[in-house]
Structures are given as C-alpha cells and as structure tokens.
C-alpha cells in the first residue's frame, strides 16, 4: 500500500494550505477543554518517556529509615511503607499506565476494527454471526471480563494488556462496522468495484482509510477506560505485577492499611489516575466533536 509520489503531489495541490500550527491554534480556541485534555496527555507522555530524568530516587529502592514518611523536601510526595519514594514511583507509573493503556487500546481497537470492517463489508450471515458473538463479549461487565481473562492468563504485563483489550474488541467492532455500513453504499465504492478492484482491496484500501476519524475517536475514548481498568485490576492485585510501579497497585492493600497514618499514599496515585483518565476523556470528547459530527454529544 505504498503511496506513489504522484498521489502526494496532487493531494498537496488540491488541499488549501493551512499549516499544522493554524489547525492546532483553531482547535485550542474552539475546544479549550479538549486542548486542556491534550496538554494533560502530552504531560503524561513526556513523564513516561523521561521518567529517568524526572525521578528523584530509584523507584524500587527501599529505605528502612524513612518508611511512611510525610512529604518533605527530599521526598516531595512522601514515602510508602517500604520507604520507597512516592513521587518517583508515580513518575514511573505513568510509563506503565501509558504502555498498558496504549497497547491494550490499540490491540483491542485493531482487532475489533478488522472484525467490524469485514462484518460490515461482507454483510449477510457473516455479519449476523459476528454481531451475535460480539453481543456475547459485550454482555459481560467490562471489569468482570477483564478480571476473569487476567486471572486465567496469570499475572504479567502482556497478559494484563490482553485482558484489557478483550472487552474493547466488541466496542471497536461496533463503531467501525456502523461507519463501514454507510461508506459501503457510496458511489466511489461502486466505481471501484466496477473497475474490477477485488473485494479485499476495496475493503482495506478504499473503505478502511475513511473510517480513521471514528477510529481515532474510539481509541482516545477507550484509552481513558483502559487506564482505569488497569488501575482497578492492579488494585485488586490482578494486574501489573511487582516490581513495576503501577498507580493502581500503589493504592492497593498497603495504602488502605496505612491510609490514616500516611494519607499521601492514597492521595497522589489516585490524583495521577484521575488526571490521566480526565485528560483522555476531555481530548476524546473534543476529537469526537471535530472528527465525527454524527456522534456529537452522544
């Protein structure tokens, strides 16, 4: 599916020249909340990438002399029950949260997207069967399904990613299918078929690119929920295993146990989760308004 240079040249000539910055500026003005969400997500991504630079301590180094320490200059967010620096663990937790969130969202959305594309394009009995199977996956509460998958596969980062992606598949398939159903009826698809373009090529080359808008909206919306599910699974010790610092795990048993003595153990990881999810929700809402007007306000 290589893009020929000729295609690029034609596209560039036809499109009115509005630079990326102008577009971004317009987005900021029209959707201040979405822009705020974007800034939050960017901050999270930067934290995840530069965790080693931002950390003040080794996130897994323990300090028996200063356990459950209150926030002070040396440990800005305090220390946990093993004397580990909470701030450094939160910084590294951003990496775990973002990796698990992004990977599971992409895995679930791509798998679901392919199912949705094929089921919408082929239609008929295939579609009917696919829809019923998706009903089954969607019928179970998201967290319960993720919990069972995670328990069945055993604790590891890869398995958590799979566990979170499974419930995303039916949701992604629904979104892509419904947009494929309307694109399929367009005249240019008929034209492509008349020109003798094979089915598989029509589906992937001519229909798929036009579902990108809803796909991006879907991914942003699911990212927040994936981060939330990861936190919840880790909180229940069904998620990311030690020694990786995970926000949900930081809130787990130890935090509950020492909550009264060291409220900072509860406060900071929770704020981190909430901000990350809040950011992706804000961004997702704004992107939906811009890219997919049909779903506006839904």
């Amino acid at each position, binding site marked *: 599916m290589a893009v020929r240079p000729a295609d690029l040249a034609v596209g560039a000539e036809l499109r009115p020249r509005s630079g990326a910055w102008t577009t971004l500026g317009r987005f900021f003005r029209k959707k201040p909340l979405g822009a705020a969400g974007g800034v939050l997500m960017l901050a999270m991504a930067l934290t995840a990438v530069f965790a080693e630079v931002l950390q003040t301590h080794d996130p897994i180094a323990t300090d028996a002399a200063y356990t459950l320490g209150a926030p002070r200059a040396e440990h800005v967010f305090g220390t946990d029950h093993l004397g580990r620096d909470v701030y450094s663990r939160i910084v590294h937790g951003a990496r775990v949260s973002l990796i698990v969130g992004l990977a599971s969202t992409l895995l679930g959305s791509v798998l679901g997207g392919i199912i949705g594309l094929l089921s919408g394009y082929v239609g008929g009995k295939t579609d009917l069967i696919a829809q019923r199977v998706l009903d089954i996956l969607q019928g*179970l*509460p998201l967290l319960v399904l993720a919990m069972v998958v995670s328990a069945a596969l055993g604790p590891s980062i890869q398995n958590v990613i799979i566990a979170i992606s499974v419930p995303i598949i039916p949701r992604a398939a629904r979104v892509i299918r419904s947009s494929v159903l309307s694109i399929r009826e367009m005249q240019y698809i008929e034209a492509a078929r008349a020109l003798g373009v094979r089915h598989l090529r029509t589906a992937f080359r001519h229909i798929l690119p036009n579902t990108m808008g809803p796909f991006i909206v879907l991914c942003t919306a699911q990212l927040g929920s994936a981060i939330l599910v990861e936190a919840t699974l880790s909180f229940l*010790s069904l998620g990311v295993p030690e020694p990786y610092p995970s926000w949900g795990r930081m*809130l787990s048993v130890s935090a509950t146990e020492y909550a009264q003595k060291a409220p900072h153990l509860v406060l900071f990881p929770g704020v981190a989760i*909430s901000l990350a999810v*809040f950011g992706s929700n804000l961004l997702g809402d704004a992107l939906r308004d811009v890219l997919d007007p049909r779903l506006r306000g839904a």
Partner: protein
Amino acid sequence: MKTYVLQRLVIAVLTLLGMSLVIFTLLRLAPGDIVDILFSTAGYVSPSEKQAIMKELGIDRPYWVQYLDWLRQIASGDLGKSYRYDLPAWQIIRPLLPVTLELAALSMVFAVALGVPTGVISAVRQDTGLDYVLRIFSLAGLSMPAFWLGMVIILTLVTWLQWIPPLTYVSPAQDLKLHAVQFLLPALAVGYRSSALIMRITRSALLEVLREDYIRTAWAKGQGGRVVIWRHALKNAMLPVITVIGIEFAFLIGGLVVTERVFNLPGVARFLVDAILWRDYPIVQNLVMFIAIVVILANLLVDMLYGVLDPRVRYGS
C-alpha cells in the same frame, strides 16, 4: 408484540449459551487445575489421592462432558460448591445478595437523581458557564476510579470528622441509622460515576428533542418553560436515558467489585474477587454466569419497557 418478545427471548438464551462457552473456556485456560491449587498449600499429595479428588470433582472427564454437565447444573439452578469453604455455593452467596442488591439499587437511585436533573440543566443552559461546570463535574466522575473516591471519602471522614465508619457489616436490624450511613457512602462513590453517563446522555438526548417542531409549537402556544422541558421534551428524551440505565446496570456490578472491598461490605461482588484470588474456579465460573444472566435480564427488561414508555416503538408489526 408477542413475536418480538419471543424473538428477544431466543436471542437472550443464545447469548447466554455463548457466554457460558466463553466463561467455561476462559477458566480452562487458567494455569494448573483446581486440584493443583487446592493442594498447593498441602505440599506433597500422593497421585492416587489426586486421582480420587479429580474423580470426585468430575474433571477427569472430557471437556465437553464437563461443559454439558455444567449447563445442566445451571439450568436446574444449582450453583455448585465452593471448594475453599467446602459448602454449597448458594449457601454462601445467599446472605451476600441483599447487600449487593441494596448497594446497586441505592447507587442507581443516586445516579438517576443526580444525573437527570444536571443533564436537563446542562441542555437548557447549553454553552453557558453553568453547562461547562456541570460537564466538567460529570467528566470528573467518569475519570475518578470509584474505589479511590471511596478511599478518599473514608479518609476525609476519619481525618476531619474523627468519625470511623463501621469496619464490619451492620444489619438494619442492629442499627438502622448506621446501616444507612454504611450504604450511602459507597452508593455515593459508585453512583457518581453512573450519574456522569446518565447526565451526558440526558443532555444530548434533550438537546436533540428541543430542536423538534412540536417543542416550538409548545413554546408558541405560550406554555411555560418548565412544562415544555419537563413534560413535553424530557418524556421523549428519556428513551436513550433508559437504555443507558440498563447498560449501566452491568457496569455498576463492575464498580461494586472494588467498592465493596474498600468499604468492607460482604457482597457478592467482593466475594467474586476473593474467589478469583483464591482460584476457586468452579465458583467463579458460576458467579460470572450468574452476573451474565442478571445483565441479560436487565437488558431484556429495558427492551420491553420501550414499548410501554414510547408508543412510537412498534414491535415487528
């Protein structure tokens, strides 16, 4: 109507069958069988003893026999046995059910009571400062983990009011007031999240209805704002809201899983997590199936309600 109900029922049964297959397969994927897990703490177990237990549990038979046997068991309403407690599962779950049901109902009431009015206000005052504040408020509800919100509520009470919530379950017969408080706090934490979804749907549904001709007619004939919005518009905007309430019911169970744990309430959801952590898979299998049945029934009920609430919906005429 009759054919529609029948059709929905057949689909519901087929979906449940599919779910049972998914659940059954998933739990067979788990590393190690129940016998290994049961005896992992006991150290060495003689092979003959292991064989005897496998036979007793019926897991020496082929998978399809086990599956069919399990289906027959569920169909007859038998929830099996918990290996950890060595008791029939139903005997353990039954006292936990009222706790979860009460919590779910309270959360839902709270979610609707908060979500619908804020959604209406937000729609009527579209794009004003108030609308923005309410939307941020609801989005915050979607962003905070319910279990964390619960922890913060407890922590606030303890630190500022020096009031420690009861650590064990208080039955209404023991102390009605304490019981109410014990349930209201987690209901608040779980309901806030659901209210956010209800608020968003109410807002968008109402915005759509408010643009319709008959609403303009109502305004034109001089009807007051309150009557137009609450009687004319909201009635038609409620259909998607009810769908969400039905779907939310399923999500609520997910929210309860952690909240019951944080608030130390002996409910079914907390028991499910414990059973998963103890790897008491037979009971996990039955509990998840039980949840699936409840969810499907809730969805079926919502579908049926459509026809009653909205005469425009005609079932397969």
